[in-house]
């Protein structure tokens, strides 16, 4: 994926198996969100393709969703003026059918389908614990619940692969814990999960595998231990140590001064 002369994401090969949680980390600007946008068809990749379950996906967001990939957003993007239940029902769009005439005439088939869809949406709201707020407007929910609702809305499209873009951004430690439990529960439903996150503790607790993206390229992929021990990853985040590092000299100098004062 290139924007003008800038290559934002370059040949990232990636496999996520169902029932697996994979983390995607990397410093700011590494191309993590761009990668998600390519996967979901928001950006048309300059070169290359996205395949899911062996078939190449067309870069049309609604077809990607239909094929079974759902996502949440780094900045919450709920339908703010719709109720909690309506938000989830919109998520069910691809999994429901409706003819124009049956909708206008409100036939029995229409009512039945609508009921079934609503029941499924309510199950999801139970699952994330927002069933009691079904008729609240999404914009009136507290922040943490908005995040949860986004996950429910994504689950409503019955995905095989769920992409979470910084699901715990701005959350307090308890909320982060709760989100961890939620992601485990989603994995146990047999859904493959790919998480972007900056909270390393969250990532290493959660993920079976972690991939590190740096400057648009996949640097390392492996278990938490492998990634944590990799020097290149540390270098990407903190920079390389080098000879004559002024910070080290300063530290030495500070030590000396201290010694003299004593």
């Amino acid at each position: 994926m290139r924007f003008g002369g800038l290559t934002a994401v370059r040949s990232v090969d990636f496999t996520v198996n169902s029932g697996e949680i994979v983390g995607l980390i990397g410093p700011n600007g590494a191309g993590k969100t761009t990668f998600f946008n390519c996967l979901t068809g928001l950006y048309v990749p300059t070169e290359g393709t996205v395949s899911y379950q062996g078939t190449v996906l067309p870069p049309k967001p609604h077809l990607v969703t239909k094929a079974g990939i759902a996502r949440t957003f780094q900045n919450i993007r709920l339908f703010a003026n719709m109720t909690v239940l309506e938000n989830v029902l919109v998520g069910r769009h691809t999994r429901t059918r409706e003819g124009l005439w049956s909708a206008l005439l409100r036939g029995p088939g229409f009512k039945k389908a609508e009921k079934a869809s609503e029941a499924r949406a309510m199950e999801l709201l139970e699952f994330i614990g927002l069933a009691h707020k079904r008729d609240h407007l999404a914009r009136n929910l507290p922040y943490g619940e908005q995040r949860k609702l986004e996950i429910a809305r994504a689950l409503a499209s019955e995905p095989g692969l769920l992409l979470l873009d910084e699901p715990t951004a701005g959350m307090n430690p308890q909320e982060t814990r709760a989100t961890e439990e939620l992601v485990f529960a989603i994995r146990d439903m047999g859904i493959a999960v790919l998480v972007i996150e900056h909270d390393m503790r969250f990532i290493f607790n959660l993920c079976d595998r972690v991939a590190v993206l740096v400057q648009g390229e996949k640097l390392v992929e492996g278990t938490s231990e492998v990634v944590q021990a990799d020097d290149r990853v540390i270098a990407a985040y903190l920079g390389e140590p080098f000879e004559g590092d002024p910070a080290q000299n300063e530290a030495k100098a500070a030590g000396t001064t201290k010694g003299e004062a004593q």
Partner: protein
Amino acid sequence: MHTLPQQLANGLLLGSMYGLIAIGYTMVYGIVQLINFAHGEIFMTGAFGALTVYVYILPDGTSMWAAVPLMLIGGGIVSVLVAVGAERFAYRPLRQAPRLAPLITAIGLSLTLQELVRNFYPGADKSRAFPSLDATHSIGSVDITDADIFLVCAAIVCMSSLAWFVRKSRTGRAMQATAQDPDTAQLMGIDTNRIIVVAFAIGGFFAAVAALSYGLKYGNIDYRMGFLMGLKAFTAAVMGGIGNIYGAMLGGVVLGIAETLASAYISNIPGMQQLGGQSWANVWAFVLLILVLLFRPQGLLGERVADRA
């Protein structure tokens, strides 16, 4: 004859017609932020579609009971095709262009449609007679015609179906979602291009309903009828809060009543004798628009702009 109840009824009828047309402006604006200035012409072509059915397709002497539904279907088909065609061939290629480009296109399309009808529809350059329903009924001190009854019933049925459709049906929900955030709506699996087509089609059909009512009520149509009606309906949509379907209907009714009352009563005010009558009706309509926009820029039922983001 010209009592206050009669004037209110006249205003309500005119307003229902404005409201039906205004729906087309407001739905399209709500979803693609485009002011479809060709909508008045979509209304006009609907009237000619209905007339074609009556004059060229139905045998002479068909009863109006049978003719009106068929004329509605004919007018509806023409208006919907013109509206959807405009979207597909004029507006969709400009979806990513700066806002002025589709606006200018809309004005061009509007003139094109007018000229096409003027040049190629027999007799359309002058006004053409339209079968009217002018049998009059008296309810108390109010006289209404069959055409008025048709208009009121059609407006009520159309508006309540639309309100239900948008709030409760799957496509309606997808429409709301697309209006609020098109990118996210796509990621929910909504084909936003299809939703936009549906919005244009509904607007087109409602314009055809209004066009048929117009013909039945006034008894003649011409190729310029869409200009002023379109402008007034647009005013109604803005006054009610553009993007809001209830606002469009309310704006239409308020505008219709205000216009009728102003032309009937303003000349009774000492010193304003010259400012009454039909010729000043448009002036008062736009004065009202200016006043509403001064004190409530978002329109009567409009949301604050910040809510849309």
